């Protein structure tokens, strides 16, 4: 993991911009495990955040009075700097993965909650009227009409939340030695070893963009009608 400046290649000794031989030698023991951990940290946070935000959005949608306090709380959590939030949680949950996940989840809430609520509220009254006219119950209306119509806004929120969570998860390495932030720290301690910083950083960005691409495909598969409208 630590570049051995004594025995390394010419490029590694000189701390060149990008040493392919280093990446090849340390893909298996450093980069790949960090990438998998990073994906894991982010995926867990997004999944929990999605469930939590859905519950909050339904509550805020059904009972309008709840919307301002939930919105304020989510906004407040979003404002706290990530590094500070990690440290503020340490006295409660210790130097654990739980600490990291709580912080990451709390950053997804604002975007997911706002977009879900906006999606649900943006359902056209005509569609609701038609649903009522067809004799659908309140639950049926929600599942068959409101949720599908809110889906584009929900996925738009999910895309933003996913990309930012993957990005913020690098900071987790301040607390636990996991994720792609870890090789970056190691490199900073090794006289700013450029190859490791650029590779790990590049992997974070690539992971974020890939996840975003996957969600775009998911949206296309789930909401074929949005493309039909554009075509006509």
């Amino acid at each position, binding site marked *: 993991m630590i570049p051995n400046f004594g025995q390394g290649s010419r490029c590694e000794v000189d701390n060149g*911009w990008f040493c392919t031989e280093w990446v090849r030698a340390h893909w298996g023991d450093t980069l790949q495990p960090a990438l998998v951990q990073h994906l894991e940290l982010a995926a867990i946070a997004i999944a929990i955040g999605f469930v939590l935000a859905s519950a909050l959005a339904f509550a805020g949608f059904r009972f309008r009075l709840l919307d301002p306090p939930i919105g304020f709380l989510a*906004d*407040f959590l*979003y*404002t*706290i*700097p*990530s*590094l*500070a*939030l990690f*440290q*503020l949680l*340490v*006295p*409660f*949950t*210790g*130097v*654990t993965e739980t600490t990291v996940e709580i912080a990451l989840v709390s950053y997804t809430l604002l975007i997911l909650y706002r977009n879900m609520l906006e999606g649900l509220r943006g359902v056209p009254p005509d569609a609701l009227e038609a649903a009522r006219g067809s004799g659908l119950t309140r639950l049926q209306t929600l599942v068959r009409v409101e949720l599908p119509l809110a889906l584009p806004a929900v996925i738009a929120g999910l895309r*933003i939340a996913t*990309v*930012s969570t*993957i*990005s*913020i998860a*690098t*900071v987790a*390495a*301040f*607390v636990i030695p996991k994720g792609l*932030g870890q090789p*970056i720290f190691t*490199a*900073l301690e090794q006289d*700013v070893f*450029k190859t490791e*910083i*650029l590779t*790990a*950083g590049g992997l*974070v*960005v690539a992971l*974020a*963009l890939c996840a*975003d691409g996957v969600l775009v495909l998911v949206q296309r598969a789930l909401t074929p009608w949005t493309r039909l409208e554009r075509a006509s």
Partner: protein
Amino acid sequence: MTVADQFRPGTFVDALRFIWHNSGFLLARTGEHLELSLAALGIALLLSMPLGLWLGHRHRGLFAAVSISNVGRALPSLVLIAVGLTIFGVGFWNNTAALVVLAVPPMLTNAYFGIDGVDRDVVEAARGMGLSELQVLLRVELPLGLPLVIAGIRIAAIFVIATATIAAIAGGGGLGEVIVNQASYGLAGVVAASLCVSALAFLAALLLTLLLRAASRRPDPIP
């Protein structure tokens, strides 16, 4: 990291005691933090506002505005700071440059969409009254699009204050220097500095929310 894995809410009492006894020290760090953040926000404003407002005015560059905001969101702050270190070395400019890169996308995109979204009839009416293009932008479009423009500055400010904390690993000073240096300041010091930086971020967000509210207030309709 030398923290015991246990439930220790008493740390917050220690942290408050730390703040009480070291208020001068923390105030100095907060000042540094603010200085770095404001410098970055100022430069980012100068770079992004003219471009964003003008592109919005011409209704051009939608693709660029959306892509810049997406790419900007994917750029992790820690990576920016670390890469900045490889280019500029340790110092004020490395961190300022990284923070500016982070602050420009939300400012630029929101400025674009704020101006782009102004009612076209209103803009046409202003042109019909003989206002020059610059006057249309500054007197009609900017006041109407201001809420979204300020919302972008608010997001950028939150990002910048948060990332200025991380900048401590690159010798940025500020409150992050205390947070990443638990060996010297203890958990109480770390938590105290975390509380300070959270308060700073919250106050900045609050200030910009109030500005946003003031900007969204419509003038009273003529009776």
